[in-house]
């Protein structure tokens, strides 16, 4: 065996492997229908598609917030199966940012970011606070550490939520329409933070309606409709020469 070749192989080995997963909430309607994809370490995959097409559900399957009916999901080599242990392990490797923030309202900003570090990583308060302060500075809300979430603007809350998700040093970050609940003037500040993460080489799966942003940060784009993957391609090819007519129709509508 050639050592170089195996080294190369481990480099391009996908960190997210999704193989023909299906899911339905009610018995007959498939919200996800035979979806497969792969994400390479350090890559950004953007998922686009009309609302109701199953983007959120897909993202939530990736960290086990939803159970799948069929198929397999492998995160950093760990299978997302019925074993509670694996599920917890995966959640510790995967950070998630929601459309409506979901900060813990009874805790200060700092406590929000400290919580999982203390409970999951068993860090002391001092250790946790150190990292939290760094992360809050990174997302530009370090002056709000002692404040409760309801005293923050939407943009600030979402940046705190990103810091909270980063606090476990995840290998993968999931963003579900992170800017859709924000007033227009705050969208930029949140996108800046996500862009910085992409530039730092974070592996990310991003659901967004911000096409300019999608084009700029992503390595690949996946277009979904009615729970099916219609097209997945490297970003430039996806936008310049989409192969599917339905992709072209969707892009015409939103660009």
């Amino acid at each position, binding site marked *: 065996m050639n050592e170089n070749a195996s080294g190369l192989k481990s480099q391009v080995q996908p960190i997210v492997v999704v193989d023909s997963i299906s899911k339905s909430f009610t018995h007959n309607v498939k919200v996800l229908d035979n979806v497969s994809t792969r994400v390479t370490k350090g890559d950004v995959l953007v998922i686009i598609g009309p609302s109701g097409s199953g983007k959120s559900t897909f993202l939530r399957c990736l960290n*086990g*917030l939803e159970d799948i009916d069929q198929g397999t999901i492998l995160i950093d080599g760990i299978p997302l199966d019925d074993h509670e242990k694996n599920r917890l392990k995966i*959640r510790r490797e*995967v950070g998630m940012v*929601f459309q409506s923030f*979901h900060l813990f*309202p009874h805790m200060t900003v700092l406590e929000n970011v400290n919580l999982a570090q203390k409970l999951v990583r068993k860090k002391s308060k001092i250790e946790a606070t150190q990292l939290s302060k760094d992360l809050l500075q990174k997302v530009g809300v370090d002056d709000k550490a002692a404040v*409760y979430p309801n005293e923050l603007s939407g943009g600030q809350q979402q940046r705190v*939520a990103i810091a*909270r998700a980063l606090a476990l040093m995840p290998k993968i970050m999931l963003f579900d329409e992170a800017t859709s609940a924000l007033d227009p003037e705050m969208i930029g500040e949140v996108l800046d933070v996500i862009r910085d993460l992409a530039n730092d080489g974070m592996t990310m799966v991003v659901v967004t309606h911000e096409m300019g942003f999608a084009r700029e940060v992503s390595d690949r784009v996946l277009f979904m409709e009615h729970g099916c993957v219609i097209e997945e391609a490297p970003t430039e090819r996806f936008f310049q020469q989409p192969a599917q007519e339905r992709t072209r129709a969707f892009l015409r509508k939103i660009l």
Partner: protein
Amino acid sequence: MTRKKKNVLHVYRDISVFAAFSCLFGWLVVRGGREIAYTWHWNQIPRYFFQVDDGVYVSGPLMNGLQVTLQIIGLSLVLAGILGLTTALLRMSTSPVGRWIARIYLEIIRNTPLLVQIFFLYFVMAPILDVGRFATAVLALGMFEGAYASEIFRAGICSIGRGQWEAAYSSGLSTFDTYRKVILPQAIRRILPPLTSQAVSLVKDSALVSTIAVYDLTMEGRTVIAETFLTFEIWFTVAGMYLFITLILSAIASLLEKYVPQRTA
């Protein structure tokens, strides 16, 4: 007229109405007493609280009864809290057996009279388990109020949005930690008011344990009356003492509400 002046006027009006009703009630009682030729002996009441013999404090039956009642209330409140929370968590758990047990407990307790439960525990279970009257009383009250408390806990927990669960889970928290650090601290603020009125119910229901000869406040009151025929005075006094306990409970609850800030999403 300014709003402040108006408020003051309201207070004066309320006080006068209250005073008028109090006078009317007092008059009715006095008149009723006269009708049946009742002679009042309020001056005899203090010695049923306590006496001082040669400078030594000796507590009377009412104080002893109050002490027992407070003990029963305290212990069964703790038991009801534990049972209530456990049952609520069981009902919402993923374990079918757990949900099943919780349901059976709730249905039995809420669909039979407390008095029957007390008798059942006292005459059937107590001999088998070899527990005394006091323990039986605590057990019966704790189980009864626990069933109602569990519904209060459940409603409080359910009122916390799904997003909080998902945020906690995606941070890698276990279900236990999620309850402990995220859900319950938020739910407790909503649970506190209904839980207080349930505690007040417990105080009142505790009088029923006098039926199995536990010497609580009610039982002591009945004993004093049997000896002295001070029927009106003693019952007024006993009622006043229960009122005193419940008012203190409510005061504690509103203090807690004041100092536990409401911060929910």
